């Protein structure tokens, strides 16, 4: 087990390397630079800034500098938000994004699984159609439609929720963002769970369990759900990585101080280090959560062996 984890972590390094390399050169091919502002800096100042950040050197040298710093865990300073290093920006923003993402993930997992099981148990009945409709709605209505609608209805009309803002993580301020974040995932989890649960309920071991006179509860929870959870768990990995690293749309609409919004701002402003930092962050989270999912897999499904 430990060996497996170590090997997986080792194979993650080349993946990370490729991602960093590709993003670095792709980003630098785009015209413009962090100090090409509309107002225009004095050429001397611009030259000085570029020298400080090694931007005047050949690209391959800059790339090696970046790799070297990254290997030492240094993500560098932000070019456009002066006085901040990328690590500092993450230290402030990441807890916000992770808190929201974690709540959303938890909500999506519990609600999605629950709805999926209900749908499977009541297949082709009213409850099932309700689940299917909700799942379709959740996966077709984009978040940038849901979020303003929540703001209009719960914020402006009913005045139950604040319209936007973080307010140091006050509970009511989190409700809208968490709902918006989780809805698409509730839909996907419900759909996955419903499908695999229907299949699981038809399988031989469930028929045997029924024949042996086990209670419905025991059959559903202990025997059917355990196997049926596998697809849900395997999607939970990418879902967790996506949710915990913040969402551009949700953080923009609800004006939250998370890390999701940096991605686009940084790319537009050519804040090279911040863009790279975000890329590394997302890649690390993705690798990490896929690993965690694979480990959980082994606990749920004893057939999975880590050799």
């Amino acid at each position, binding site marked *: 087990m430990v060996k497996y984890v170590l090997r997986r972590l080792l194979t993650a390094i080349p993946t990370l390397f490729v991602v960093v390399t590709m993003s670095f050169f792709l980003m630098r091919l785009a015209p413009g630079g962090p100090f090409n502002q509309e107002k225009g800096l004095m050429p001397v100042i611009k030259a000085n800034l570029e020298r400080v950040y090694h931007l005047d050197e050949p690209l391959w040298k800059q790339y090696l500098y970046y790799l070297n710093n990254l290997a030492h865990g240094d993500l560098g300073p932000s070019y456009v938000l002066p006085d901040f290093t990328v690590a500092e920006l993450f230290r402030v923003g990441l807890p916000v994004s992770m808190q929201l993402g974690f709540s959303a993930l938890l909500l999506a997992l519990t609600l999605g699984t629950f709805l999926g099981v209900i749908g499977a148990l009541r297949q082709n009945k009213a409850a099932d159609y309700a689940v299917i409709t909700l799942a379709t709605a959740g*996966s*077709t209505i*984009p978040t*940038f439609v849901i979020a303003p609608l929540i703001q209009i209805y719960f914020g402006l009309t009913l005045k139950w929720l604040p319209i936007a803002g973080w307010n140091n993580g006050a509970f009511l301020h989190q409700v809208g963002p968490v709902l918006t974040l989780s809805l698409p995932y509730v839909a996907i989890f419900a759909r996955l769970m419903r499908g695999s649960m229907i299949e699981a309920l038809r399988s031989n071991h469930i028929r045997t369990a029924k024949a042996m006179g086990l209670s419905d509860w025991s059959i559903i929870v202990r025997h059917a759900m355990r196997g049926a959870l596998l697809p849900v768990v395997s999607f939970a990995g990418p879902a967790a990585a996506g949710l915990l690293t913040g969402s551009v*749309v949700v953080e923009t609409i609800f004006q939250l101080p998370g890390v999701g919004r940096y991605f686009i701002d940084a790319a537009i402003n050519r804040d090279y280090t911040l863009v790279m930092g975000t890329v590394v962050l997302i890649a690390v989270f993705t690798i990490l959560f896929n690993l965690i999912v694979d480990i959980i897999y082994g606990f749920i499904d004893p057939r999975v062996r880590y050799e």
Partner: protein
Amino acid sequence: MNSAKGRSLWADAARRLWLNKAAVLSMAYLALMTAVCVIGPYFTGHDFSTVYQTYVRVPPSIAPYPQADAIEAELNESLKRARVEVKGWERKEGRVFVTISADKPVDERTVRYLDRSDAFDGAKVEEKSADGLTLTMSAAVSEERFLFGTDPNGRDMLTRTFVAGRVSLAIGLLAGMVAVSIGVAYGAFSGFMGGRTDEVMMRIVDVLYSLPFTFFVIMLVVFFGRNFVLMFVAVGAVLWLDMARIVRGQTLSIKRQEYVQAAEALGVGWLGILTRHIVPNILGTIIIYVTLLVPQVIILESFLSFLGLGVQEPMSSWGVLISQGARNMDGAPWLLIVPSFFLTSTLFALNFLGDGMRDALDPKDR
């Protein structure tokens, strides 16, 4: 002698699709939506970029503007700049007659102030008092209908929503086609060649997969500039990865079939085998994927437009309109609700159609 007519895969699939009410309704809805978006703007009576300064952010209404009780305010508003006093007005047979007076003799050119308003046109002097201090003029009330209201610049939302729909649907279809073409060509070639080639080509796909997706799109958009045509190439170029994987998998199994070996034995080249034997046999999978891909592309385009990276003014797409609506939702909720409804209902229909296609073409489900 009558022999039973054979049913091809396609005839069978079409029959099954026809029995699926949700899919048929969705097809009808999509056809209607396309027709409305394509020809609708010619019948709304407004151009999508015409600005009506008098009607900024007016709510949706079936009755034409100016509304009866708004005429007086509009008269006062438009004559304010002429520095005259409105003595009285009345409306007769589609024209307003307004009497104005001032301390100095009224200039007849004052009528032009009425023409400037979008509510009136064809203003002319009817009667002038002997001392020239009082003037009666008339103007036709020009009625404009804004079924979906107007936007913050005073442009007709109905026309704009239709024109935006054209853009969104076109991008969805074209970028979908781009993605599918790349994916099918790449996947079929990779799977058919096998061996080292396949290995390398699929590793490239894996690497592209591991790049953060939004980053990729944003970089492409930044590269290509905010260009309408190149944008959907960018979107299409990103979404081909799934298609490539699916097609490769199918190709791997089909290329071991006897008829492919027979074709090889007869000396058919690899291109011939790919186009004649392999691609037609995975057409079902491709079609299913296309119907599921188009909504994805539309969402992606709206997402980019929502962030301000997509289609630029005065052109618009549903994403642009939604983003504008979200900024104006306090006080003008129709700006958000109208485009959101168009976008979501189209996505719903596309999804139902995609599910229907899958059920109809899935050989396991027979």
